[in-house]
């Protein structure tokens, strides 16, 4: 191919210092004002992301993980939204940027791939033009140059016959191929930070593995940071450096990936992991479920948000909200009064099981009455 590697410099990056974190988010709050009340979709999230690192953001539907990534990108609706807190990208406070200023960030500094590759590509535009659009706008390439770059990109994301695909429309490609095109579009201008919002949820397992491999390979080649948003702890386990677990708009546990899995402290993380069916388990193994539903983000419960569903919950959990506090291992933080794997946590769980608290009985694989499984509205 004409270009071995598409290395591109972005206009804003020239004067940036290369030390320090790539992205710092401090006490970010995104609230939606709705007729029913204020929805606290993201409620005080802080984290930092180093260059070339991968952060996994994990949580159930409605935990605020997608709103968090859209808040950082500045892709929120213009009305009825309150966004507070600081977002610093390479030291620049982009939280004050106008939409005009954000245009120099989108594409060249931050890219995004979405869950549904069917709807995130323009159905009436040839896929080649969807890639060259940003190349021509941001990098001022001429037509031929942009075309060569786009074909090189399509090759690098593993699309067979890229020159022919360049002139095709999204409906002519399979779901996996469309997601590859989406990745090519978002990588076109060489972003340093890529948001991947459930990039493989709509795909088959075999294709999911291919796409995750592709993202990893592109990340290594480009030294790009990735924020991988997913509900599947399996997807983030082998592919991230750090993981933040979100629940009801807050980060409830944050740790380097290996530490999170070996020393998890937050009962929610444990419950989420336990509810995944494992290949090692024999058939008809009863799954340990999380009873109840995620809280209403308009009227969140007092105390810990997870307390109504938590197998460890004690009276204090229903009144005082636990802050995010550091654990023994560096970089590991959690928000819980009775953490998993500590004497107080173990005692709390034993007390709850003895008292027959439904959440605790469920979490230990017991058989509660059906009506208690949290389905009754």
């Amino acid at each position, binding site marked *: 191919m004409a270009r071995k590697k598409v290395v591109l410099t972005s206009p804003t990056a020239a004067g940036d210092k290369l030390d320090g974190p790539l992205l710092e988010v401090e006490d970010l709050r995104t609230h939606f004002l709705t007729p029913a009340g204020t929805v606290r979709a993201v409620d005080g999230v802080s984290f930092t992301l180093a260059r070339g690192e991968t952060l996994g953001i994990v949580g159930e539907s409605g935990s605020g993980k997608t709103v968090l990534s859209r808040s950082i990108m500045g892709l929120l609706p213009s009305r009825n939204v309150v966004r507070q807190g600081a977002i610093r990208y390479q030291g620049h406070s982009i939280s004050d940027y106008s939409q005009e200023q954000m245009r120099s960030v989108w594409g060249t500094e931050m890219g995004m791939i979405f869950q549904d590759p069917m709807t995130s590509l323009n159905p009436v535009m040839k896929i080649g033009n969807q890639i060259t659009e940003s190349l021509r706008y941001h990098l001022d390439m001429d037509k031929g140059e942009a075309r060569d770059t786009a074909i090189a990109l399509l090759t690098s994301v593993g699309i067979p016959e890229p020159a022919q695909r360049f002139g095709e429309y999204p409906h002519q490609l399979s779901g996996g191929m469309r997601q590859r095109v989406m990745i090519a579009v978002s990588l076109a201008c060489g972003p340093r930070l890529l948001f991947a919002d459930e990039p493989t949820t709509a795909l088959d*397992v*075999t294709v999911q593995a291919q796409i995750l*491999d592709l993202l990893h390979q592109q990340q290594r080649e480009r030294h790009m940071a990735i924020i991988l948003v997913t509900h599947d702890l*399996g997807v983030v*386990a082998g592919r991230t450096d750090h993981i933040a677990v979100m629940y009801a708009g807050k980060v409830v546990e944050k740790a380097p990936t290996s530490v999170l*899995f070996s020393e998890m402290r937050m009962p929610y993380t444990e419950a989420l992991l336990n509810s995944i*069916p494992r290949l090692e388990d024999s058939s008809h193994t009863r799954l340990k479920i999380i009873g109840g539903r995620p809280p209403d983000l308009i009227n969140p419960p007092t105390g810990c948000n997870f307390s109504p569903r938590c197998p460890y919950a004690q009276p204090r959990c229903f009144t005082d909200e636990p802050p995010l506090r550091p654990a023994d291992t560096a970089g590991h933080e959690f928000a819980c009064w009775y953490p998993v794997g500590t004497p107080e946590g173990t005692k709390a769980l034993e007390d709850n099981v003895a008292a027959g608290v439904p959440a605790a009985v469920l979490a230990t694989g017991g058989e509660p009455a059906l009506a208690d*499984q949290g389905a009754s509205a």
Partner: protein
Amino acid sequence: MAGSGTAHLRDPGDSLLRMEHLVVEFPVGRSGLKVHAVTDLSLDIADGETVGLVGESGCGKSTTGRAMMQFPKPTSGSVVFDGTDLTTLSGEQLRRTRTRMQMIFQDPISSLNPRRTIGDIVAEPLNIWKRGTPAEREARVDEVLDAVGLDPAVAKPKRPHEFSGGQCQRIAIARALVLEPKVVICDEPVSALDVSVQAQILNLLEDMKERYQLTLVFIAHDLAVVKNVSDRVAVMYLGKMCEVAPPERLYDAPAHPYTDALLNAIPVPDPTRLPDAAGRLAGEIPSPVTPPSGCRFRTRCPRAQDRCAQEEPQMRRVDGDHYVACHFPLVDVAGSRGDEPEREAVATA
């Protein structure tokens, strides 16, 4: 892999539902071409068993599930349910049989009529078949709603949009159970749900199976989910059967290279087990309009040889209840010839 044959079928007397040489084809516009969605597929399901049907999108697993319901009628082949060949039935007879076979779909929210109340939705099958008195129907609706973990008094006057995805799936299950069916075909019932909700629905299906003595056909692409619920797993590829085995066998000693590739692709929630790109299946499922000759998997198979292009593998026994359709399976198969490919095959551990 991906072959034909009926070696894996058990004695006809033991099966509640039995498909033989099932073929489902759809025309492609007016071109005269056909989509070969399911080609010469045979499978039997015993009374009280859960059979998992696994494969990638486009492998024909949903089409197979629907063909069992005659929905649409298969192009050829037989579907024998409880001694009756459903493909010979039509009209009223078929409608009557369908009351004993029900389906649950992938997207719980769009499979419920948004303008009707939950009480109406669940009672409708009873009303159509005029089962019992109105009071008895009411009691039956209350019973199934209670069984799926919903409070009937709270749920009945509400409409689907007032419920979450998991709860809508519970309602869909209640609707499927209200006529006391024998067989329930679950088409990707949990793939649209969060992991935590998925676990609730899987446990619920197990409970319902026990409580109402159901026979389940469980269609899914997630092998871990299928393993959890199934007594027998059938792996499909491009309209053909690859491997049929009890779940433990299939997962411990997969015989088909495709099964092995599927197992390898599953993300494991354990950071110490890094994803292994070596055994990764390349490419995507070929077009079912012009499927490859011989074994349909050969275009992506790491072990494929010339023979795979010329000769279609037939189902043969590995041991016990484990069957595979592959010329070069990953485990020894009694009576097979030339098992080891000459070319250095990619050692899929």
